[in-house]
């Protein structure tokens, strides 16, 4: 039986309205690393618990021992349940690696699902280091360990939820390339939508890049576009590489149109 390619594993959902969306699934290795962080967190909590119990032990060693036994047990099985409940499917480790537990039909995660997937850790963690759970997750097409199978959950790579800064596309109001419609037409023909979308992505992410890499990226993109269509010097002089890319994207992806939303293609 061939091993599934976890690099491309996704949970695809098609809604009754015909809309499709997908979640990239987390593979066993990244989940294992997240578990290590959680294991360290549990260890830390237990150390804190044992220090706290030391004060009780001064009054009653019997009660202190009981608090520690029950406390450590509750922490070991309740850590995942509690955090996945209050953080909507995340623990410390999952937060660190950008993972999230969700219902495998993308519905709301319910308490019983969280409880069951965490109780089944007793089997998944056998015989050592989540060997059974890891093996299941490796072979299962949706990277499910046994707990996920019974709880009907999957672990996904949490997507960025912030709306991208689309104002970056607008840039300067004046596009000097607009004065050369025949060259713009050639630009649309030569560069095409796919290559222009590279420039668009670079513009949207410009604020996430350091100044050095950002300058090098826009220089490479501008040179790429310059090689395909050459605009007269008066249209390009004093243009930075970034502004050059902005003009190209503007010319290709936003041709002049009466329709404010959907414009005719080049």
């Amino acid at each position, binding site marked *: 039986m061939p091993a599934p390619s976890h690099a491309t594993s996704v949970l695809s959902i098609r809604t009754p309205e015909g*809309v499709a969306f997908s979640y990239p699934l987390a593979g066993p290795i990244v989940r294992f690393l997240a578990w290590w962080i959680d294991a360290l967190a549990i260890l830390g909590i237990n150390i804190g618990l044992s220090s706290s119990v030391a004060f009780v032990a001064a009054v009653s060693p*019997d009660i202190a021992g009981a608090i520690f036994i029950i406390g450590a047990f509750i922490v070991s099985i309740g850590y995942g349940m509690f955090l996945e409940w209050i953080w909507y499917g995340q623990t410390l480790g999952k937060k660190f690696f950008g993972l999230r537990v969700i219902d*495998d039909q993308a*519905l709301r995660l319910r308490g019983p699902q969280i409880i069951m997937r965490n109780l089944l850790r007793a089997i998944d963690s056998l015989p050592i280091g989540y060997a059974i759970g890891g093996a299941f997750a490796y072979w299962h097409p949706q990277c499910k360990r*046994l707990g996920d199978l019974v709880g009907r959950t999957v672990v996904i790579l949490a997507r*960025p*939820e912030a709306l991208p800064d689309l104002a970056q596309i607008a840039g300067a109001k004046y596009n000097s390339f607009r004065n050369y419609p025949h060259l713009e037409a050639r630009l649309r023909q030569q560069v095409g939508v796919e290559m222009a979308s590279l420039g668009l992505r670079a513009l949207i992410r410009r604020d996430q890049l350091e100044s050095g890499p950002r300058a090098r990226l826009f220089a490479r993109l501008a040179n790429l576009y310059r090689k395909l269509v050459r605009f007269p010097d008066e249209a390009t002089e004093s243009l930075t590489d970034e502004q050059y890319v902005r003009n190209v994207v503007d010319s290709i992806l936003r041709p002049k*149109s009466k329709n404010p939303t*959907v414009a005719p*293609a080049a």
Partner: protein
Amino acid sequence: MILDLEKFARSEQPHWKELEVILSVYEGDSEPRLTLDEVRNLHYLYERASSGLNKVSAFGHEPQLQSYLEGLVARAYAAIHQTRDSSERVAILRWFRFTVPQTFRRHLRAFELAAALTLLGAILGGFALSVDPYAKEALVPSGFAHVMESPEERVAKEESIRTDQMAGQQVQFSAFLMRNNIRVSFLAMALGVAWGIFTCIILVYNGALLGMVAWDYITAGETEFLLGWLLPHGSVEIPAILIGGQAGFIIAGAVLGWGSRQSLRARFRNILDDLITLVLLIVLLLIWAGIIESFFSQYHEPLLPYSVKIFFGATQLAALFYYLLATGKDASAISHARS
């Protein structure tokens, strides 16, 4: 057609933001109650975001915006298409009075199987000890030193005690018992995913230990001590472990899917709530058993008469099975629980 992304996003952004706000409120509320207008608005915004996602997917060439919209549509989809009761609040009294006994009875065959396997183990354990006195040493774990003693020696020792030997360690001992028994029961349940094979093994082994101990004490003429020692906590602890086995067999039944045309996923969906009910029942029973074992079972005659202990244990056992088998039969409650 090419989407003018910036203009499109500018015109749609207020609707997306409004949907985000509604979803944040909705998701943060354990029992969301929306008016009809709010529901209509939520559905309208969901459809609008879905339409936007379709456009961006087809024409936009902007994966980050597409990803944002997919996340938004997914959240709205989960909120709108959640057909189950979204409330996670449990009416504790109703759960105790109706849900627990009904759930137990719904899977009575699984419990009977667990009990039968334990009984089989007990018979095998007793038989093994009757033919080979050294079987006890081979099968009993090292932590059960008191079981390894001969019954006569143990009874003589226990009955010679005139002071409270457990003083100062009852709470810790009780906690230790609770943790261990809960762990074993969870394991018996979780091992059900391996087609129930290991659940069978755990139950037979547990039964074998019980059978060996029972045979040992009965043949030594110490039946009264045995009942007085085991009944007070065993009348709760053993059923709890059997319920753990019951839960394991429910899982095994879902894995095997005999006689069911449903998918594995649907079978797990059908049993999930019942499993949680049984798990909570196990925890409650074992907490009680741990308290009884530490504070009651460990005291013997002359400190505590065996008749009192046996009466307590037998009454408790009868009460537990009366509760599980004969209560919570109200028809309206049954339909509510099933729905």
